[in-house]
């Protein structure tokens, strides 16, 4: 469907067309996954199901932008899918029996309302027998209805590479007989963790690269939020799903203030909190509370709770640091990684002061030696305790370890500003 969501008529830039296209984009995202899920269930074949979805969405794009979105878009697409199915059945004997069943499956489109199979679709796309990249691409393609071109633009990959990745993934599902179903209770937790990891990876990819360097690049943060919200609808009693949704919303509610007008990175302590979306923050904080009432804590809930503490604080100084510390202690039990320990050390420095935090950091050393934020954090703490020469060295080390232009600019600025009069005198 390379020609659907992103094929706006170049001449049609007036507001009416844009509004129509926005409505179409929203309708497509809601409908593409539903249609794909039903077709995969019925045909047992990802490739042919996606071909039908693509054709139907193309037909809808042509029709709906003229006639408007029908009252029952799912029914419209389902009817269109039956026509396409008959076409393919005539052409390809392999699918004949199944497609004939599909073509005969329902009467008028007013009463056609395929069952929601999207949960099975999501779990199949994120099956551990597929590589993480394949899981991400397949989920975006099938559940969100993105075209290979849109996926390619999100990951700065070539459309050809993405198309190939999708083909290989579909072939593996067929050949290795990856089942199309929601896993049973014994494996649900483990399999759900993979689904959440896929959504979080999409979000991070979109979040970290939204600096404006590549304006043509698709921002995945919205797709990730949409997916997490869909999953929360389909699995409302899974607290980690609610936690991930809250986490994504809390980040998105504050995304605007991460960069200033010149594209420079703004640290959390310096961000203008009045510009945050406080309604979205309150809604996400409610989700965190709702999740915690289920009494099955997990890493996404804890991360969301930490971010909620930051998002609800009136200022950096008036942040509930002791609470954040406790949450990091709990998070470390789930994710015992040096990076989480680094974040905890930053939080601790707000409670116990920079001297203790520096000791924490030095104990972390080794595994984080090639991580620029470790050195940048150390530099900040060293400067606070007046060890300026060491601070300078640490900032230089950090600078040597990151290629991100916004981060480099911030570090360079810090190095220039930190140059003491004595330094300058020595240089002169």
């Amino acid at each position: 469907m390379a020609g659907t969501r992103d094929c706006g008529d170049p001449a049609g830039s007036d507001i009416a067309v844009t509004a129509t296209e926005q409505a179409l984009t929203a309708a497509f995202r809601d409908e593409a996954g539903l249609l794909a899920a039903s077709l995969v269930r019925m045909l047992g074949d990802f490739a042919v199901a996606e071909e039908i979805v693509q054709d139907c969405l193309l037909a809808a794009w042509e029709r709906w932008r003229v006639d408007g979105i029908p009252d029952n878009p799912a029914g419209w697409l389902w009817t269109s899918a039956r026509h396409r199915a008959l076409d393919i059945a005539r052409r390809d004997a392999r699918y004949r029996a199944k497609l004939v069943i599909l073509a005969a499956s329902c009467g008028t489109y007013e009463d056609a309302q395929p069952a929601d199979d999207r949960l099975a679709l999501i779990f199949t796309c994120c099956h551990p027998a597929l590589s993480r990249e394949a899981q991400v691409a397949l989920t975006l393609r099938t559940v969100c209805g993105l075209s290979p071109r849109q996926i390619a633009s999100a990951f700065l990959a070539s459309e050809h590479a993405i198309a190939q990745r999708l083909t290989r993934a579909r072939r593996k599902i067929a050949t290795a007989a990856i089942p199309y179903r929601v896993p049973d209770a014994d494996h649900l937790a483990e399999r759900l963790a993979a689904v959440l990891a896929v959504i979080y990876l999409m979000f991070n990819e979109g979040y970290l690269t939204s600096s404006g360097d590549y304006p043509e690049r698709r921002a995945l943060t919205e797709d990730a939020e949409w997916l997490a919200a869909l999953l929360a609808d389909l699995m409302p009693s899974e607290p980690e799903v609610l936690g991930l949704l809250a986490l994504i919303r809390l980040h998105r509610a504050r995304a605007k203030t991460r960069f200033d007008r010149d594209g420079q990175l703004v640290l959390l302590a310096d961000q203008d909190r009045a510009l945050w979306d406080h309604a979205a923050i309150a809604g996400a904080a409610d989700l965190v509370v709702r999740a915690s009432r289920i009494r099955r804590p997990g890493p996404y809930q804890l991360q969301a709770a930490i971010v909620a503490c930051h998002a609800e604080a009136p200022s950096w100084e008036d942040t509930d640091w002791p609470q954040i510390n406790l949450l990091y202690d709990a998070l470390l039990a789930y994710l015992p990684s040096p990076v989480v320990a680094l974040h905890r050390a930053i939080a601790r420095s707000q409670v116990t002061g920079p001297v203790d935090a520096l000791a924490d950091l030095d104990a972390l050393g080794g595994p984080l030696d090639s991580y620029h934020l470790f050195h940048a954090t150390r530099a900040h703490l060293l400067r606070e305790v007046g060890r300026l020469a060491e601070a300078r060295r640490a900032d230089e080390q950090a600078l040597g370890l990151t290629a991100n232009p916004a981060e480099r600019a911030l570090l360079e600025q810090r190095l220039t500003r930190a140059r003491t009069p004595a330094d300058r005198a020595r240089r002169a």
Partner: protein
Amino acid sequence: MGRWFAANGSRIGATSQLQGHETATSVRFGQDGTAMVTDGPFLEGKEQIGGYAEIEVSDLDEALEMARTWPGRGTVEIRPAVTSR
């Protein structure tokens, strides 16, 4: 190929042609014995195959369930066979 099989038939037991390595799925065991499912084959240079079993299952999850409970050491690789369906 048919001629080769005919000539050596008396010495050949069960055979199947396997699907390509890109269809493989592996189950590895952590130090505490927990099973981890990963994408791809397990053979990397020096590893060696210790044995094989042909199994008849309805889908990959059923095969994975068997592999997870494998009491021996090492990795279990699951590879679909070419069938004439």
